[in-house]
């Protein structure tokens, strides 16, 4: 059963992974003193836009690599 479910699970993981990767609201509310990439982007956005933009590239690159990797499973046709 697992091989049959594989592509669907991979497709679902795209959303969960990306939602979590860029989040800063949940981190502020229940993350204690932890910071995620999103918090750094958000905190520096109005004062240092180039730095923010550079940090924002990280989740973008990670998502790109992630999508390219799981494209092999055929998951992207079922998004």
């Amino acid at each position, binding site marked *: 059963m697992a091989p049959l479910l594989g592509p669907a699970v991979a497709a679902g993981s*795209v*959303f969960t992974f*990306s*939602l979590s*990767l*860029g*989040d*800063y*609201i949940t981190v502020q*509310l229940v993350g204690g003193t932890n910071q995620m*990439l*999103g918090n750094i*982007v*958000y905190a520096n*956005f109005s004062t240092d*836009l180039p730095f*923010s*933009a550079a940090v*924002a590239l990280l*989740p*973008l690159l990670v*998502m790109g690599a992630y*999508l390219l990797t799981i494209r092999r499973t055929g998951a*992207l046709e079922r*998004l």
Partner: protein
Amino acid sequence: MILSTGARWLLRLAAAAVLTFIYAPLVLVALNAFSTSVTFAWPPPGYTLRWWQAAASNEGVRTALVTSVEVALAAAVIAVVLGTLASMALVRYDFFGRDAVSLLVLLPIALPGIVTGIALNTLFTQALGGLTFFTLVVGHATFCIVIVVNNASARLRRMSSTAEEASLDLGATPWTTWWRVTLPALRGALFGGGLLAFALSFDEIIVTTFTAGPGLQTLPLWIFQNLFRPNQAPVVNVAAVVLVVISVLPVYLANRLSGGSAGATTK
């Protein structure tokens, strides 16, 4: 699949634990919206509609609610129009680079909100002359389109194109064929997609933060801003209940429309 009694109970227990973990806090918020206690008191000392009156007469909450509904409606309409066109092109026609375009259409929902947000913010403020109500609508439409494309494409793929071909063979113009044959078959899927798009836009906060014009406040933004003001806590609870109801109802309706099958891939 046949499971042993032990495994069945273990799975039931795990499912119950996860669902409790997700929904118990929500139930608490709802209870607190009716509790006579301003601070969190358990069990609630009594029940009152006072906070609902306070919320109804609160200018900030009312304006935010209206803005949220307007933005969500506008974004859903844009998403339905553009999403339908995109899904027709992607499913019914074959053209150079179709797979790439299909990936590009789906990408916005796979990108973290903060990336979309900062990109749109920079575009709007530095190249297009500032943030307005309209930029907020466009920001929301970028990820709402994906839902409509998903819904419409799923329906188009299940539907054979023979009825459309017959209509064209019998001399109907492409426009008449679309209006009398394709659209009626697609209507449910489009309406469902529109409802999901509405829900997706209604509870969005990250892209909203980056694309809302000055002074514009949606309900999620209002809640987030008032979350840490202790004296506002009961009104925040009321606003949260309203937010949950208005964003869950369309998802429920859309699921029923599509027979519970087509993807309810909101959040």
